[in-house]
């Protein structure tokens, strides 16, 4: 039994069948990649996992509990964190504040009216945030406005924020999209390092094969809303169905 | 003396803490007998009129009248109504020998803003009397403030029964007529002109003044045999009255009574005419429109539509009596156009106040109030007038007017149809429309 079990999930948008009949099982502490051409339903699937979309059919179980019908923040509190394609951070806040918020969320839950104590006196939270920033090489930028950082640093910050919550499952939605090769490699190294240091399950949706094959332990190929094949990277590389799906895409493009 | 807004007292040197600069001349000595007792050679009056908002023009005209009154009290200009006023104690040397000065403020036609403005006049400028305003809500609010503060309030344009009815106050006085008087004066003329067998449809501004006027007119017309088909409240904020006018077409009403004032009146009347109500024939009679409270300034906004419409007004510049002529002459000479009824009532109120002070020999609000109560006078444009002691309302003739068919100028919009004698508009102080309040006792403040 994997930590994440997706069974028979389907989703329609009007006349478009975005997800057909998706089955997916992600083993605990593995790195699992979902790949597929544009429009294959990768993002829709991801959105079904985090509560942004509710599938029309099927079930999504995380650690034995259904996530369906829960809101994104509830699912997050269950232990699923999400990294977005374009970094979603608190642009108006400093890096330090950005880091503290997930620490609060982890300690206080979805809501706490903590209105009198000052942020400065929350030493426990500050220490955690500091430690995380040290860990992620963000400490020097702690007073910077998050919005004024480079794209790579924003990505780093977003991942750091997710990790600060100590999630059991980290979902990455095309984490290197639009990045230069050097930044992409940095991100790969960062994710490898993360995986080394802690027990965490990572699901990564990616376009870039280089990233996928550097990181993934298992790969699911999605095409037209249904899983085409699932296997270890070595097997996927030469798989005829995968070639067909991608070549088909190339031909169509 | 718990009832005071300001206690102007002496502060001990110690309390200021290190007031080492204390010199004998620093402190005023002795408490005043009443709020803002004038010291020195001047006395300050507070003119609180709408300078912004829909009644700003009326406010501007009121202010012109006040400035004229101040001139006349100080012995400048031609003296205006001072020459025709039946009481002759004012000598043109200010009030009790003190030169009259004034401060002005903006009521914005909002109770809050009007009170703020009046308070600043009392607290900051030392005004001994507050006057002005162009709506009843403001008049009532400022009147109660003056009662608490211990100064006299001489109401400006306020037509609601409540001002001298359930909201009357010992320190407040109204010269302007009221809704009951409009009804009492208008009804006989309506009956005479349009007959006693009429069916009336009322559109009424949905706030206190509108309701008291509707109540008054309904009572007065029904007493003469009219039937009230329907009374409909319209929102104050309404700008387009078409959806209130069209239902009139569906009834068998043959008279439309517009209990509206200001912009509401202009728009509802214009709309009614647009919908052809005036050409309509119902029950074999010509359909008629009545505007119980006319304002010439506002009537201009309705242009041709006022022609032939009956209504009532407190005063009109075309009156031929000596007092009116004197006032129109000095106002017209100074400003180039005739005064409005709002200007008239404000001018008269200022003179009446000054006269009462002079007769009482004191600025003390209680003495002034006593001098005004039951005061009978003449020569102020409305014929013999009584300031009734029981409710501080002036009783005088009321004008019934009609929109003029062939105006000779932009000011010549109304013609006086009838001067309803005072006896016909007088009511008992405990009349049910005025019941519920009490004057209380006068408050001189500190």
């Amino acid at each position, binding site marked *: 039994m994997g930590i994440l079990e997706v069974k028979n999930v389907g989703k329609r948008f009007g006349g478009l069948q975005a997800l057909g009949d998706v089955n997916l099982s992600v083993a605990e502490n593995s790195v699992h990649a979902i790949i597929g051409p544009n429009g294959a339903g990768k993002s829709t699937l991801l959105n079904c996992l985090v509560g942004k979309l509710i599938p029309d059919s099927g079930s999504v179980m995380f650690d034995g509990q259904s996530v369906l019908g829960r809101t994104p*923040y*509830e699912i*997050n509190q269950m232990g699923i*964190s*999400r990294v977005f394609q374009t970094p*979603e*951070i*608190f*642009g*108006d*806040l400093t890096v330090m*504040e950005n880091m*503290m*918020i*997930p620490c609060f969320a982890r300690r*206080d839950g*979805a809501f706490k009216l*903590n*209105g*009198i*104590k000052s*942020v*400065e006196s929350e030493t426990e939270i500050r220490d955690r945030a500091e430690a995380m920033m040290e860990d992620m090489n963000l400490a020097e930028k702690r*007073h910077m406005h998050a919005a004024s950082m480079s794209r790579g640093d924003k990505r780093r910050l977003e991942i750091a924020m997710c990790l600060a*919550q100590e999630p059991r499952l980290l979902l990455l939605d095309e984490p290197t999209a639009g990045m230069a090769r050097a930044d992409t490699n940095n991100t790969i190294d960062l994710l490898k390092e993360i995986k080394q240091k802690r027990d965490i399950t990572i699901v990564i949706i990616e376009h870039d094969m280089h990233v996928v094959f550097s990181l993934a332990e298992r790969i699911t190929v999605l095409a037209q809303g249904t899983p085409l094949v699932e296997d270890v990277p070595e097997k996927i590389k030469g798989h005829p169905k995968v070639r067909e799906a991608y070549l088909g895409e190339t031909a169509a493009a | 003396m*718990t*009832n005071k807004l*300001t*206690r*102007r*007292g002496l*502060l001990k040197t110690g309390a*200021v803490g290190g007031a080492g600069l204390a010199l004998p*001349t620093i*402190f005023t000595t002795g408490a005043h007998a009443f709020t803002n007792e004038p010291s020195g050679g001047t006395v300050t009056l507070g003119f609180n009129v709408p*300078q*912004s908002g829909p009644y*700003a023009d009326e406010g*501007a005209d009121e*202010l012109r009248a006040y400035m004229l009154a101040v001139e006349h009290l100080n012995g400048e200009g031609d003296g205006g109504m001072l020459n025709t006023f039946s009481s002759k104690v004012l000598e043109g040397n200010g009030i009790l020998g003190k030169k009259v000065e004034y*401060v*002005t*403020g*903006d009521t914005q036609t*909002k*109770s*809050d803003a009007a009170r*703020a*403005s009046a*308070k600043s006049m009392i*607290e*900051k400028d030392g005004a001994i009397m507050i006057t002005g305003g162009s709506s009843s*809500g403001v008049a009532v*609010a400022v009147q109660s403030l003056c009662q*608490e503060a211990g100064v006299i309030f001489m109401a400006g344009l306020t037509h609601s029964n409540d001002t001298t009815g359930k909201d009357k106050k010992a320190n407040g006085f109204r010269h302007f007529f009221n809704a009951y008087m409009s009804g009492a004066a208008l009804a006989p003329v309506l009956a005479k002109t349009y007959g006693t067998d009429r069916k009336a449809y009322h559109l009424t501004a949905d*706030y*206190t003044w509108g309701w008291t006027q509707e109540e008054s007119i309904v009572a007065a017309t029904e007493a003469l045999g009219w039937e009230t088909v329907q009374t409909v*409240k319209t929102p104050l*904020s309404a700008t387009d009255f078409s959806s209130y006018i069209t239902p009139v077409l569906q009834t068998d009403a043959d008279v439309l009574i517009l209990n509206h004032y200001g912009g509401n009146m202009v728009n509802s009347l214009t709309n009614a005419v647009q919908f052809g109500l005036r050409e309509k024939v119902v029950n074999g009679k010509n359909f008629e429109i009545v505007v119980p409270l006319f304002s010439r300034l506002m009537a201009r906004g309705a242009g041709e539509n006022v022609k032939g419409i009956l209504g009532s007004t407190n005063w009109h510049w075309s009156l031929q009596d000596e007092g009116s002529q004197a006032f129109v002459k000095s106002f017209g000479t100074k400003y180039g156009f005739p005064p409005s009824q709002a200007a008239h009532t404000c001018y008269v109120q200022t003179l009446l106040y000054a006269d009462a002070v002079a007769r009482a020999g004191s600025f003390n609000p209680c003495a002034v109030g006593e001098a005004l109560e039951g005061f009978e006078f003449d020569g102020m444009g409305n014929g013999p007038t009584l300031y009734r002691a029981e409710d501080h309302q002036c009783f005088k003739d009321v004008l019934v007017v009609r929109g003029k068919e062939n105006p000779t100028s932009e000011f010549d919009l109304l013609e006086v149809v009838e001067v309803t004698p005072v006896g016909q508009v007088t009511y008992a102080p405990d009349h049910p429309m005025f019941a519920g*309040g009490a004057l209380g006792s006068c408050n001189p403040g500190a």
Partner: protein
Amino acid sequence: MLGLNKKDATLLGVVAVLVIFAPFILNPFPADSAMAQFNAGYPDLMQRFVIFGIFAVGFNLLFGLTGYLSFGHAAFLGVGSYSAVWMFKLLSMNVIPAILLSMVIAGLFALLIGFISLRRTGIYFSILTLAFAEMSFRLAYSVLTPITNGETGLQLTLEDPRILGQTATENGGIPVTNLFGLEMRSTEVLNLGGWTFQFNNGYYMAGALLLVAFYISIRIFRSPFGMMLRAVKSNQQRMNYTGLNTKPYTLAAFVISGMYAGLAGGLMASMDPLAGAERMQWTASGEVVLMTILGGAGTLIGPVLGAGFIKYFENIFSKINEAVLHSWFHALPDGLENAIVWVLEHFVGSGWHLTLGLLFMLVVTFLPGGLVEGGQRLGRLFGRKKDAEEKTATQSTPAE
């Protein structure tokens, strides 16, 4: 000090000094001088400064922190005033129960309106709040007249039952609002040379509450709760995916800010026991929005400055009339005097709105951060360095 860092403690100290010495600071000109027109140190206006200061500080807790632009905040001030006046009519002339009730009622009202309106964001939220407030105003003005006394406003009468207290005083007047016997409207006057200074009980009580309100606002700004609110403004999506439920955060901010408005309304009624329906009109809601933006949304002191600025113009400039202008310039040759007066009279007296409108445009064009930015620029001119953290903490980036 008081759990504040040095900078905030200094700011609070400065505000406290300003509040305590306002009767002196606002009356810089001798009472008989021509410039006395500009004196603002009389009880009513000083009370208004602090009461609208409280209102704006509370509004800023919502708008400045979360970016939710409520266009109906005056409704809470209005219900606060009505509650307080009813308390005076029915219970006692002591201001404490009145103010408490006004905060509670305003809070409940805010809970209801906030719960519904916060289902939407951005301009949809603004219009929902506007709709609720306009409904309240219009009903209060007309059909709810039995409760609100409509056009005139709810006031005390000589027939109020008043359970704990007298219906009327011995000499037939209406009793006065008080704090355990200390009359709100009583004023001590100090004449010092040509200067007149007025010390009013009500003002000092309202001033004390402003300091409390301001202190609480600083604490909220600096608290994790305040940080969460700024995070809501910055990125709601990230909030949700960080396991945080934004709705209770925004609702709590809305209710707290509604209670501030209720406090302001209760205080207004305590200073002057009348509650007018216009207090709830959209123009009144718009006014607090303008105060906050003008002063500097999201800053601590900005809303107080904005409130003072607008109230000053409303009360001081509107009272300068032609006669006053002539008295200022009468030393000049007649032609010049008339010319100057003719120009200036457009901007004062009945033209005070024009001046205010022009100043809105000038301030927002040249001082994007509001009056606070003006202060900061002045500060920089005198070479004070700015702390980076302070800048981020009080930054003025209103909602987009």
